[in-house]
């Protein structure tokens, strides 16, 4: 349960770049690659239950979903001008990222690898986990982000198009991905080199997770 908060904190830390409209950018991939594998892997290594990373990801998803479902029930009114979007209730966050998928994959892999002693083997495992995280997470989130920006997600469950603050203007930009126009000055496309960098970040993050989780497992009270 508490480890779920640990994942929530990590997700909040990078929430500036994980908004649904930004989920096709390289920065989104890099931020998740650096922040999340470390936590999932560490929880797996330290956890004394089955499917520890998956459980943590489920807690994270439920906590976020509770906010999405409960906050709009409270009436609210913005008090400070300028008000571009006159909301009438508390504004929910965007739907949580689908960390459940890479968490499940990480649990599946690590239950087969054992302790994996030796720095070289650990490094190799970290790189593999990094690649695994990137492949599974980006593969799932890529399409889920498209869904979140579609009209089908505009309901109480997914809160698509319902997370705009009073300072956000209305307009078609709400249903578009940002920074993905090729050739634009602000473009941040996921290129091959960006994928390589993301892999490196995810691998490093997973390596820290292996060390950290291994240490936590040995802690004596």
């Amino acid at each position, binding site marked *: 349960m508490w480890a779920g908060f640990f994942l929530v904190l990590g997700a909040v830390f990078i929430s*500036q770049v994980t*908004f649904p409209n930004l989920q096709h950018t390289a920065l989104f991939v890099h931020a998740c690659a650096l922040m999340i594998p470390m936590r999932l892997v560490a929880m797996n290594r330290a956890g004394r239950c089955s499917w520890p990373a998956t459980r943590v990801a489920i807690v994270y998803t439920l906590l976020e979903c509770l906010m999405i479902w409960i906050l709009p029930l409270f009436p609210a009114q913005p008090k400070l*001008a300028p008000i571009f979007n006159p909301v009438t209730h508390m*504004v929910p966050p965007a739907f949580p990222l689908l960390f459940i998928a890479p968490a499940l994959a990480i649990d599946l892999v690590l239950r087969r690898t054992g302790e994996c002693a030796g720095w070289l083997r650990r490094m190799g495992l970290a790189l593999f986990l990094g690649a695994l995280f990137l492949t599974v997470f980006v593969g799932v989130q890529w399409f889920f982000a498209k869904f979140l920006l579609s009209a089908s997600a505009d309901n109480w469950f997914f809160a698509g198009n319902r997370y705009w603050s009073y300072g956000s*203007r209305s*307009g078609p*930009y709400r249903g578009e991905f940002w920074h993905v126009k090729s050739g634009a000055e602000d473009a941040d496309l996921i290129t091959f080199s960006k994928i390589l960098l993301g892999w490196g970040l995810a691998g490093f993050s997973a390596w820290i997770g292996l060390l950290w989780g291994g*240490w936590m497992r040995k*802690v004596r009270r």
Partner: protein
Amino acid sequence: MDWAALGRLDEKGKTLNWRTLLLLVLCFAFPALARAHVGSPDVFFDGLVGPYNARITIRMPAVVPGRAEISVRTEIGEPLDVAFLPLYSRTSITNAPPADLGRLVAGETNLYSGELWLMTVGAYSIEIKIHGAKGEGTVQIPISSVALSQLPLPPFLGRALVALGVLLFALGVGIIAAAARESVLEPGVSIGKNERSKGFRAALVATVVFVLLLIGGKKWWDADEAKFRTGLRGGAWPDLTAGVRIENSQRILRLTLGEKDFPSMQSIPLIPDHGKLLHLFLIREGSRDAFAHLHPQRKGGKTFDVVLPPLPQGRYMILCDLTLEGSALSSTATNSVEIPPIPDQETGSLTLEPDRDDSWSAYAGVPVPNTSNPTNLVYTLPEGFEVRWKPHLPIRARSDAGLRFDVRDAEGRTVDLGLYMGMLSHAAVLRSDGAIFAHLHPSGNFSMAAQSFFENKMQRESAKSTETMRMDHSKMGHVMNHAQAGTGISSISLPYEFPTAGEYRIWIQFKIGSQVLTSVFDASVSAP
């Protein structure tokens, strides 16, 4: 919960688009922008709000977001409801937040105060509503929300934060060292040399990592601060270049506005103020013994020409008031220009007709009354009229300047002042170093063009009665006409507070018959 406001979200999409328009074109100069009055950001109003005579002061915050402090002093002491409502130029008035109520100041019977948060840069109008036994009145007072300065960190807060930071650093290193040293030992096992060594190494690594993080954080902070500071400019906005040419015995001043600040725009969009796109003040540098209030005509997208009146040659300060269309932001562009001698008169066609409301005064050698000699605060015009100022001395900064003037003829009789561009008077205030300038009217020092912008916006977007929404201009006769008829008024009152101590020169312009006259005073202003 304002999730969408997190981080870069507000910089995107349409939100980005309007900021693109506003920021890319205007915003890098925003901090200097909207100084319709250079160095004098506070806004004053004096006039009727419905049935109530009120004097309103809006003290602008130096930073954005920031709190504007509003005070409303009414003439009558009966209980009133006073409400403040901020309206933003780029949002519908139906999106306005609930009004804040003004509170009666303790010990006062007719002074109400309150605060409003200005959350972003741009033009706002503060709608002041007064309700009482006599009925209800509303006035729109336009303001420009910009960051004017960087507030210093209070020393005690800086020391407290450093102390807490050091504590946090030490605790962080300590926790990591302890974790490395003894976290994996069985209970009851004593710490050996090996564990101590591990703890020491972990502390060392943690210290290096933390120091690197602090260095990175410092660099990020410095870069962010530098970016913020680039927007803080000492001068006014937008960029202005000026040059004088002689054509057909006319000295023609050409102004070019916004070449640098509006690079992608063919034309600088302006709203007329008192029917004029620009209000240009020329003041001879150094002696300040020549003054002109002119109204250049647009000759191109960003170029404006004006015929110079017979001002003596010399270098002149240029102070050019303008209000931008669309955003309703008002600003003062500044520069200086060398004006050549008056050319020999020759007959021939004129290149440019002077504006009928252009006015000027050259008064070298004429003694200028100074508040340091309060027994003789009378300016005598060559036409024989006398202007008498009776301030409450000493004049202090951020207090009522007491700019109240009586105009008499040579025999000491009251005169009948006419309307000069719809106002009983136009006045200008300049500190001796040129760093503070304000253009004043009896109704206040805000842009009338911006006020009209918001009044029109209210009428367009509101279902409320036009009569209720429209400001009552009857006191100062805010009507655009050039009637020669007088107002029956012979005294002028200008709501204003000098922002800082210093030596100021004040030019008071008024109209008698068809003549626009300019009187001059000097004021020594002490610290508040």
